[in-house]
């Protein structure tokens, strides 16, 4: 994949996505698929909400003492015979990985699913260094042969349909019989498995991500449904784990709590099919395992978020629930967001990693419906954090001029009620008279964003406040007259 950033063109990306028939068909399944499963899984577990609280607390505690846990993790990995590398940024991480591969004379690298690999643009870099990266997660494999980026953090190829996959397989797997039947999903799966099997056997290095890094034991944990991760990390000479620093968790006990909310929030499973713990390289007497075990811990701007207004974002366990429940994601899909992380979590994280100048669209492209926060297993207040970015943007005068100007004019009036009330009264009377016949407007000057797609109702006429006061005044006069009459009686 490439890490070209198209977030500044979000509007164009979205327009294209909305006009893309196959994409829309694929997206229409995201909500119904994920939402029902997550709800059912959450409903079945009475302590689910309590677990979310403790998941939040575990992450908060870890982040508050991150230096301590990083140190302990490093010690434990070393004690188990492994290596820990700290990477300041993407380039640093790429260089570390490439050097490990070169030192081993690696030609082929198998890869389990890793968003950090996407974040640092590892595949392009490895290819350029003459090392062939092979994605072994089915979804990642599909997008790799298409030269695309993932469109979802746990279901990278969710934007594709079966027909597109068949077409790609016929295009790429030219050594197979052209007349083979690929109409069933199982046939596609079998073909991918067959292709990947050979790669597992020849790979020199296996690279995986990590869902968690456990400080007390120096263990990295991956959670998968395909088992590809296990083959990726046990068969080759070396296993490289790519993880960002917020993946740290103090103890195995903590991990077991987080695992209980992770799969339920992600796919509605109680547990994923495989949960694999790796601690160090193969020990004498072990039946299998890699000869070398490396953990590359990436910062890439995250340590700057610690203790700041965005710190809660570092609790994220990458379950994908926020995008699965997001109306904007459902409408445009992941690629429209223009970089590695889509949906609500991307709208908060992306500007932190690539800068608000490039990422400004993302925190703005939200209706603030709040459903992401409602389902996030670690209770990240995503809308609040998106609003933080809007504030930064506003402070730095990055807000588009017409919007800024409109807001200023409105704010001027709204702060001066004595001006606001007559002005709105006048405007509404005018609109009401103009729209009386039809009851609504199909077009209005300066309101094209609205009337391009929907009608605008004609106001009833006169503001509520003016009418209320007039009615109250009339009532008071009536009462006064009545009282006066009463008093006048002899």
């Amino acid at each position: 994949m490439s890490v070209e950033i198209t977030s500044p063109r979000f509007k164009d990306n979205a327009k294209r996505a909305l006009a893309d028939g196959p994409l829309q068909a694929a997206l229409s399944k995201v909500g119904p698929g994920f939402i029902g499963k997550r709800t059912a899984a959450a409903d079945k577990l009475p302590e689910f909400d309590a677990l979310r609280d403790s998941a939040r607390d575990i992450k908060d505690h870890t982040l508050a003492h991150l230096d301590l846990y990083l140190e302990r993790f490093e010690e434990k990995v070393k004690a188990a015979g492994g290596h820990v590398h700290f990477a300041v940024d993407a380039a640093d991480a790429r260089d570390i990985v490439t050097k490990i591969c070169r030192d081993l004379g690696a030609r082929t690298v198998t890869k389990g699913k890793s968003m950090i690999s996407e974040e640092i643009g590892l595949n392009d870099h490895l290819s350029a260094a003459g090392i062939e990266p092979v994605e072994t997660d089915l979804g990642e494999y599909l997008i790799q042969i298409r030269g695309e980026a993932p469109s979802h953090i746990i279901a990278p190829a969710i934007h594709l349909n079966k027909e597109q996959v068949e077409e790609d397989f016929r295009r790429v797997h030219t050594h197979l019989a052209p007349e083979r039947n690929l109409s069933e999903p199982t046939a596609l799966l079998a073909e991918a498995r067959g292709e990947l099997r050979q790669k597992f056997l020849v790979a020199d290095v296996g690279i995986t991500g990590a869902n968690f890094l456990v400080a007390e034991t120096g263990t990295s944990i991956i959670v998968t449904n395909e088992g590809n991760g296990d083959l990726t990390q046990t068969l080759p000479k070396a296993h490289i784990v790519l993880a960002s620093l917020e993946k740290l968790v103090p103890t195995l006990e903590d991990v077991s709590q987080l695992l209980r909310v992770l799969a339920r929030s992600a796919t509605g499973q109680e547990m994923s099919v495989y949960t694999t713990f790796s601690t160090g390289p193969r020990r004498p007497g072990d039946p299998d395992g890699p000869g070398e075990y490396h953990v590359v811990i990436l910062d890439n701007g995250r340590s700057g978020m610690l203790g700041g207004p965005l710190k809660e974002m570092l609790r994220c366990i990458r379950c994908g629930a926020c995008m699965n429940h997001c109306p904007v994601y459902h409408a445009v899909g992941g690629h429209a967001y223009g970089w590695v992380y889509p949906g609500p979590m991307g709208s908060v994280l992306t500007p932190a990693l690539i800068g608000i100048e490039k990422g400004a669209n993302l925190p703005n492209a939200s209706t603030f419906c709040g459903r992401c926060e409602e389902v996030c297993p670690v209770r990240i207040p995503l809308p609040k954090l998106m609003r933080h970015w809007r504030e930064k943007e506003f402070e730095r005068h990055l807000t588009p001029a017409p919007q800024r100007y409109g807001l200023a004019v409105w704010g001027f009036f709204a702060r001066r009620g004595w001006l606001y009330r007559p002005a709105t009264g006048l405007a509404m009377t005018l609109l009401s008279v103009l729209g009386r016949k039809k009851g609504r407007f199909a077009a209005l000057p300066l309101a094209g964003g609205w009337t391009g797609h929907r009608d605008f109702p004609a106001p009833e006429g006169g503001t509520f406040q003016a009418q209320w006061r007039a009615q109250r005044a009339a009532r008071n006069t009536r009462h006064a007259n009545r009282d006066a009459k009463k008093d006048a009686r002899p």
Partner: protein
Amino acid sequence: MPFSSPRNADLSPPRVGLFCTCLVDMIRPSVGFAAAKLLEEAGCDVDVPAQTCCGQPAFNSGDRATARALAEQVIAAFENFDYVVAPSGSCAGMIKAHYPELFTGEPDWTGRVDRFCAKVHELVSFLVDVRGVTRVDAAYDGTVTYHDSCSGLRELGVKDQPRALLASVEGLTLSEMVDADTCCGFGGTFCVKYPDVSNAIVEKKAANIVASGADTLLAGDLGCLMNMAGKLQRQGRPVVARHVAEVLAGMGDAPALGEPASEKAP
């Protein structure tokens, strides 16, 4: 009596400040009158102090200073009431859930703001949860579907209350739409900043509304209603839209949102 409230026996009626909201003030004053009527029927003494906006557009656009200035204005205008009630989950949610954030780190304000926010409610949940209203004296001849507006639902827990009161409206049938609690795509300024995305979202909503078979769409927020009604009207659908307060107050015979007055004339 159209309601039964244990607290009705209280000595003096509670004084309620009606925060009418900008949209009701400008576009559809009848919602304000419906709200006042419901509040009075629930034994409240209603007044409408001079007001402008709760500040949400500024807050959500990142203009905290303006939002804070408007919040101060709202607090000053309303803090002497026993309760502050708005016919909108969005505006009530802005005040109740977000005003405290606007004054963080200002010890002179925090206590005052917290006390104020505790008095703020969305209309229908106030009637049911605070005033103990269990039924209304209203009739509506039609099948309605109810959209759960996001802020009311997620910030204030408004979900069962409107349905409970609608169940007591004579002649009214409630037909739930699929995904009633999914956003309609309005999102305040979102709908004009990202019109294409907003349109895609409201198109799905409109399809669900139509599929419910209802002839009337109800919701507790005028912004969402304008968005959905505008889409339904643009598509030429025979579904009209009203604020839930109008129907609960027995004022459901006025022209619906965006419909001409003449249509209803004999």
